């Protein structure tokens, strides 16, 4: 970090020396990117319609799927226990996984970061002269921008999950973990397919016809591809089995037709045994799409056996760190790695439901994204994401692993506000952070300290209530305060009215009631 706040000024440390400039909040990235993207999303009527349709559909499905279970709470607890135990012994289970994969003739590659993972996959393709790769849906490959790396190396990646293919054709990133193209309308899809296939598609083509077009077009690629790339929903350590969950069947083709299968997984996706796998599979499909189980679950262990008529001759598993070991080492954030990527938290989040995935500016959106993105990529690059939440707690309730996302969002906000003190001076309510990496404005800091100090003394609190009542008088209209013209308080009244301080505060009414009773 080479940019510091110095009481109202910004001090930049440059190669050529120090630059002191007047602090300009508008130049700060805080709130600028997310807020402006969010505003754009809220104004986008097509997106709002798509979100309204999709969110309730997912939530309803999940609720029904869990309601029919005998003991959903017990299942969730069991799932959490498996994740907690696995992450606490992650090194052992990864070692076992690697041994098991190798025992069955597969290869294991360890990638410390995105660049390395991309290098590994590109090298595998280059060594074999591969020009075309088919991909089944993988958030891990989105995280590392694998498609971009492949294209730069002259390998054409074709997404085969219908939603992923649609956004690939549109040149966009996914807007939801489970339904990447939920923001696209049928009309937009028709235009994309017409361009991709080079054939006209009638503007009133029904959705089954569009699905058939995708099937025909992508089948050619499945049969011609030199490499199949997949993600990994879970990897079973005891046998080295990677598990891939799909509804469309594209997973079966991407992993079964090309001569080499490359599976990319985040290191935290390992699962100790098949018994554990069954528990987590049950939680995953019900939480993600409200299904008891998806149409297809592929459990793949190494390359084809000699007596098998088809299947790849080579199997490669790429295990990705990319910031995960850092998160593992922070006790209060470790449970963010328990995530099984079901997307349930997105569907209930009042923020996500309104702004969609692209507003978050990174591959993982919603509550889990607001926690993982700053942890993986740096809080300084995404300081506004932990604030993209009302802390309502719906995400924690919806999560099949009961990950405490609200607590982690608060912890991230605390880290962001405190920053790292380098040179500071504290006396009473005065807190001069002469040099720190905090993003918090000094006005905010002083006011919070004042508030915290005054609340310790009932006399001051009551005096404050009385003074507040009189000071607010000019601003009150009809019992509410519609606008406070003074920044930073003006932000509070931009979209809603503030309730007024009562003429008779509660503590006065309570005393009167008590006196009345005693009398």
């Amino acid at each position, binding site marked *: 970090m080479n940019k510091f706040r110095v009481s109202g000024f910004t001090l930049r440390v440059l190669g050529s020396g120090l630059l002191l400039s007047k602090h300009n909040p508008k130049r700060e990235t805080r709130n600028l990117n997310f807020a402006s993207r969010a505003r754009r999303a809220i104004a986008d009527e097509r997106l709002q319609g798509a979100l309204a*349709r999709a969110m309730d559909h997912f939530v309803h499905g999940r609720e029904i799927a869990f309601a029919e279970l005998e003991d959903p709470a017990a299942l969730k607890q*069991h799932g959490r226990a*498996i994740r*907690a*135990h696995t992450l*606490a012994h992650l090194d052992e289970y*990864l*070692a076992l996984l690697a041994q098991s994969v190798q025992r069955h003739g597969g290869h294991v*590659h*360890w*990638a*410390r970061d995105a660049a390395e993972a991309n290098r*590994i996959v590109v090298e595998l393709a280059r060594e074999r002269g591969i020009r075309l790769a088919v991909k089944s849906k993988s958030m891990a490959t989105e995280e590392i921008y694998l498609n971009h790396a492949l294209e730069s190396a002259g390998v054409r990646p074709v997404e085969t*999950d*219908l*939603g992923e293919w*649609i956004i690939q054709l549109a040149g966009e990133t996914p807007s939801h973990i489970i*339904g990447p193209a*939920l923001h696209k*309308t049928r009309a937009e*899809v028709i235009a994309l397919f017409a361009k991709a296939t080079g054939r006209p598609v009638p503007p009133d083509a029904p*959705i089954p016809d*569009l*699905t058939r077009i995708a099937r025909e077009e992508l089948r050619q690629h499945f049969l011609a591809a030199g490499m199949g790339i997949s993600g990994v929903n879970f990897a079973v350590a*005891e*046998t080295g089995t990677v598990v891939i969950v799909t*509804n*469309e*069947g*594209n997973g*079966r*083709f991407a992993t*079964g*037709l090309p001569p080499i299968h490359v599976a990319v997984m985040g290191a935290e996706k390992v699962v100790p045994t*098949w*018994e*554990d796998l*069954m528990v987590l599979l049950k939680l995953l499909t019900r939480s993600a*799409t409200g*299904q*008891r*189980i998806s*149409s*297809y*679950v*592929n*459990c793949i*262990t190494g*390359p*084809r*056996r000699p*007596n*098998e*008529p*088809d*299947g790849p001759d080579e199997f490669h598993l790429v*295990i990705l*760190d990319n910031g995960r*070991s850092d998160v*593992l080492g922070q006790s209060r954030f470790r449970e963010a790695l328990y995530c099984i990527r079901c997307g349930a938290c997105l569907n209930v989040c009042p923020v996500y439901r309104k702004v969609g995935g692209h507003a978050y500016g990174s591959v993982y959106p919603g509550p889990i994204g607001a926690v993982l993105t700053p942890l993986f990529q740096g809080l300084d690059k995404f300081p506004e994401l932990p604030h993209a939440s009302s802390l309502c707690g719906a995400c924690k309730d919806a999560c099949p692993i009961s990950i405490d996302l609200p607590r982690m969002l608060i912890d991230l906000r605390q880290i962001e506000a405190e920053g790292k003190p380098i040179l500071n001076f504290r006396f009473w309510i005065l807190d001069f952070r002469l040099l720190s990496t905090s993003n918090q404005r000094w006005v905010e800091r002083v006011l919070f300290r004042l508030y915290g100090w005054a609340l310790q003394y009932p006399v001051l609190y009551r005096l404050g209530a009385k003074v507040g009542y009189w000071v607010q008088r000019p601003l009150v209209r009809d019992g509410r305060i519609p606008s406070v013209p003074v920044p930073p308080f003006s932000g509070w009244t931009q979209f809603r009215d503030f309730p007024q301080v009562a003429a008779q505060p509660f503590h006065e009414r309570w005393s009167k009631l008590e006196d009345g009773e005693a009398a």
Partner: protein
Amino acid sequence: MAELSTGAFLDRIRTALRRGDRRESALARPGEPVTPADARVHANAVRARAVAAFPVSLECFAEKLTAVGGKVHCVESADQARRLLLDLAAAQQVGHAAICAYPDLANLGLEDALAEAGITVTRVAPSDWTPEIRQALRVDLVQADLAISGADYAVAETGTLVLAAGSFNPRTATALPRIHVALVRPERLLPTYQDLTLLLKADWLSDDSQLSSSCFTFVTGPSRTGDIEQTLTIGAHGPGEMHVIWLVYESR
């Protein structure tokens, strides 16, 4: 820069774990893993229980599979099985069928029946799978309209079939054609996934933890997608139609 070695990668993890809360590292295992040897000890009991529970399991299986668009039939003789298959093939204008030579399908006379009806039949049976033979098989599977298979297991809990890749069952055989029909004997139907896991380990996992099939596919109904405007479409990349025919009669 050379690729990270196993040791280096795991060291990063170990260092991180040491930094974290020590109490978390002592987390107990939720449930004991079942070894292949344990599994084999209990396998017969699991099978016997499954056979006894067949009527109840079948009802559950049919309910769950039908709910997701699969079709369930019961036949009481090999003759009925043949006639049902021919009816399905005729209704869907099948010109080419691929049969995976599962043991359950032996003695059903399916190939002859289909051939007599004028349908081209590709029989997938254990063979020397040379690259040329494999390529020829792929061409056949791509052209086939109908895939006929058995199943290694079925799970009543979700209406699911479990197919293991093997010498007569290519991974993609039941995925490429637009219709999949599975003929299954009742003793393969298991009530729960717990039963399935135990039998998978008993039947396919050796004592030195070697799995003898590279791919187990759990198939539940036809392929589907909801990716366009959240509208459900049955039939995506995999088959658009899926049938399970239960052979509920004594085998000869």
